[in-house]
């Protein structure tokens, strides 16, 4: 038997089945356990658009010893819990990768319906009697998925204690008998897997935590957002359910009341953001979350937030659009709506984290920024980021500052308090209802320093300037990565500029390209508005050619950058509903590297 070696680990496993097969649950145990054992894990589950029934689920997890940034386009092993769904995924298994499947179907199956006839010659078949084992050991076929996870763990020599720990924890609230039976199912599968001859070459090697149980926790992007909100001591949250943002609200519904904070499901997105603005106005740390269609409804309110200078945070998890679009598929096509989607000159702060840890950071920092710059802050996520899991280690010390509002300095009297006082940095001291002698009315109308409606031409010019100027400081906000360059320093042939969830694939492609000897570097831009122009321009100065890969058809980020810098970029756009493929980015990098070389030679 191969023991856990000193070599690196990089294994991607896909579990495919229908909604009723416990596919996602199986994937969950796998990723939680491997994170527990100290491995880096990136995982992304795909759910069927149908709510119930037999729709296809795929749980994918990439388990590594080194830091990686995205899933691989090829999996090293596929576990089929339902061949009718999994057959289409056989092709994602790489050369000498394993296909693990049910060898004891409950009933006769039609010719061609079994996955074994669909394997490529380079695949390794592992047929296992999941159902029989489950029935024998647990008394029912329902634990097939657990037996399969056990088999997988045995087959790849995964650390068994971590699995026991996770399963025990998962079933802690259930009956002891059930928990025991599930453990038995796992162990039975593990035993068979461990005693199966290993034909595959992928091995679990060292973990980041060197085998010790670690502080790494598996967390989805949305869970990280919720965690960030909690650590930033959110007071109020209002939302209206919409995929893929709903789980933020659901998590907060659980967590907030425990701390006395309040969460309310409103009647629509308009009221969600309206109430958020009301709460923000009243001094609360308030947030809402939605997806593209909800953001479209929120447009008008977003403008009110800008005009009335109310601190709020809106988490927007993008999905395929326009309109209802592809509710369960990922896309990055709401950038324009987020950045530009208000009536008038309504600039506000837009943050787009690139990974799960970033979700946590951006969520918490968004509250600081909203307060400090007195403006709505939009945190732009997407389905791939919201739903993907990564093993993250959260800071031991709470990294978020509490009250960041510019305080009212001297005691004012009623007539002297100016809510929208013109200051050097454009930020006015802010009073909230309940503050003595600072009564004022905020409005969506253009107004003077006191907040009284005014359509005086000079006033509108002055106030527009104030509202934009005050945001400039945000690109230097402390404790958050606004933009960051990776890879080769100084002059390179190819630079890849990216944002949001796609940056993981970009980094992987960049790393591959560098291995091939291509001089390149990648830069992520986390703050999309206002743009950190200085580092972006410096990046352009250093790069022969600049590539902008993103998951939308209209090259929205590329256009944003071109508009802001006047530079040229190469666009790479995909709208397949799935994350960008690393190899597609790599192919573009190679092409551009050749081009850059040719230009240099001339």
């Amino acid at each position: 038997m191969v023991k856990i070696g000193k070599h690196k680990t990089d294994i991607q496993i896909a579990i495919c089945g229908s909604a009723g097969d416990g596919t996602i649950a199986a994937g969950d145990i796998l990723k939680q356990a491997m994170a527990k054992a100290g491995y880096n894990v990136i995982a992304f589950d795909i759910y069927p658009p149908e709510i119930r029934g037999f729709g296809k689920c795929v749980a994918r997890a990439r388990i590594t010893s080194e830091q990686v940034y995205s899933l691989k386009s090829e999996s090293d092993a596929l576990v089929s819990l339902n061949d009718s769904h999994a057959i289409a995924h056989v092709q994602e298994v790489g050369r000498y990768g394993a296909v693990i499947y049910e060898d004891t179907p409950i009933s006769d199956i039609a010719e061609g319906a079994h996955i074994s006839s669909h394997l490529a010659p380079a695949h390794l078949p592992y047929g296992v009697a999941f159902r029989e084992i489950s029935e024998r050991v647990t008394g029912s076929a329902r634990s097939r998925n657990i037996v399969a996870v056990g088999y997988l763990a045995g087959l790849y020599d995964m650390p068994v204690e971590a699995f026991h720990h996770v399963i025990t924890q998962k079933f802690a609230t259930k009956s002891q008998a059930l928990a025991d039976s599930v453990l038995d199912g796992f162990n039975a599968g593990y035993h068979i897997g461990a005693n199966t001859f290993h034909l595959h070459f992928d091995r679990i090697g060292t973990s980041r935590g060197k085998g010790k149980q670690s502080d790494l926790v598996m967390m989805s992007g949305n869970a990280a957002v919720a965690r960030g909100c909690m650590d930033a001591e959110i007071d109020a949250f209002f939302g209206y359910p919409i995929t893929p943002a709903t789980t933020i609200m659901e998590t907060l519904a659980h967590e907030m009341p425990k701390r006395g904070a309040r969460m309310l499901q409103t009647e629509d997105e308009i009221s969600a953001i309206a109430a958020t603005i009301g709460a923000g106005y009243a001094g609360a740390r308030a947030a809402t979350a939605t997806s593209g269609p909800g953001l479209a409804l929120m447009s008008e309110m977003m403008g009110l937030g800008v005009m009335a200078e109310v601190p709020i945070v809106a988490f927007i998890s993008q999905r395929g659009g326009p309109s209802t679009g592809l509710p369960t598929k990922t896309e990055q096509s709401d950038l324009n709506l987020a950045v530009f989607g208000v009536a008038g000159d309504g600039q506000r702060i837009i943050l787009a984290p690139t990974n799960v840890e970033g979700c946590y950071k951006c969520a918490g920092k968004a509250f600081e920024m909203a307060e400090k710059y007195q403006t709505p802050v939009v945190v732009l996520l997407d389905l791939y980021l919201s739903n993907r899991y990564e093993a993250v280690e959260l800071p031991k010390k709470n990294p978020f500052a509490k009250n960041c509002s510019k305080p009212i300095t001297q005691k004012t009297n009623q007539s002297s308090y100016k809510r929208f006082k013109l200051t050097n940095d454009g930020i006015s001291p802010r009073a909230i209802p309940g503050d003595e002698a600072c009564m004022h009315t905020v409005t969506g109308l253009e107004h003077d320093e006191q907040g009284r409606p005014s359509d005086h031409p000079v006033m509108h010019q002055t106030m527009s300037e104030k509202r934009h100027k005050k945001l400039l400081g945000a690109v230097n906000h402390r404790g958050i990565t606004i933009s960051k360059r990776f890879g080769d320093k100084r002059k390179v042939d190819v630079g890849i500029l990216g944002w949001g969830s796609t940056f993981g694939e970009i980094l992987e492609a960049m790393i591959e390209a560098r291995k091939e000897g291509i001089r390149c570097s990648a830069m992520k831009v986390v703050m999309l508005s206002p743009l950190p122009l200085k580092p972006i321009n410096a990046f352009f100065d250093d790069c022969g050619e600049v590539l902008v890969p993103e998951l939308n058809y209209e090259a929205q980020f590329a256009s944003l950058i071109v508009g802001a810098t006047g530079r040229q970029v190469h666009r790479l756009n995909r709208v397949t509903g799935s994350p960008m493929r690393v190899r597609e980015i790599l192919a573009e990098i190679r092409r551009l590297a050749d081009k850059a070389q040719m230009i240099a030679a001339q």
Partner: protein
Amino acid sequence: MRSKKRFETMAKREHYVVIGNGVAGTEAALQLRQRDQNSHITMLTAGKLLSINRYEFPKVFSPCGSDWRDFLLHPPEYYDEHEISIQRNIWVTHVNAAEKLLMLRHRESLSYTKLLIASGGGRYIPESLNQFRDLMEKFGTYEEAKTVSEALSKGGHVVMLGGDMIGLDLARSLIKYGFRVTVIGQEYLFWPHHVEPAEKQRFTTILQDMGISVRSYASVESIEQGKSGRKARHIVLNDGKTIDADIILSFCGLMPSLAFMAGAGVDIERGVLVDPHLKSTDKNIWAAGDVCQIWSPEENQYRFYYGWENVKEMGRVAAFNMTGGNESISTFQDEKLIVTDTGEIDSPFWQFS
């Protein structure tokens, strides 16, 4: 997708199914493809691996190390290039010749238009040794061979019961790699070669000169698990002597693997009975390799033919006839055991390329 295509056009095209991916089956699949471009070809094998060269298995003991890729007859791409669907980990449980259907263990049924049985043979264990089955390691598949090699520590002692040519081939390698080998028994020594009693001593001496210890007149009385601190196996011979071994292997010839043919409606004796065209008593079923017994008009009986060259030729002829040809199998390799110029034993059985 590959298979979907297959089903859509099934009516028009032949669907050749080959059970077994040994030398006979693999050769047959290639011949089928070359003679019928338009057909569907499916190879079924119980193993998990692509067609593998079993004759090379002794190399698993090589100190240089090896993995199964070193034993492949063809790389994975070969099957795609030749459009041969090789389905592994498949157990055929029953053949329904009347409806031209194969029943598979995982409850799928598979239809064919022409079927070639090339499932080969497994180790034969004589009645007298059957009770010790569990104490004898298997060596039939790559996985078994590799497991044995990993279990055997450097310089370890291998006891072979029987000593057929497959075993002796392994014994040669084991000696070369520094292991100890003892061969016990008389009846199956040099199987499938028929060696005259007068000759037997000469060959045995050569084996001993090679460093193999031969106990040809002994037979096994009992086998036990070794006591702790001792070797893994403890053998008591009929003459009262005992031998301690790390591993016991049985090499007493082959037994055709055709349990799934029971009830198929095809004549079977020890193997599938076929005419010199390798056709069975069913008009859509052929057989080739170690699984078939071919009618020999000269000897007026059905008989087995062994050895790499023979088996490959059977695969070729069967495929030729399945695709409309009419060729009798005739030219078989000389099956005599020989002594080379350098004084070593050699056998056409061992020759493969």
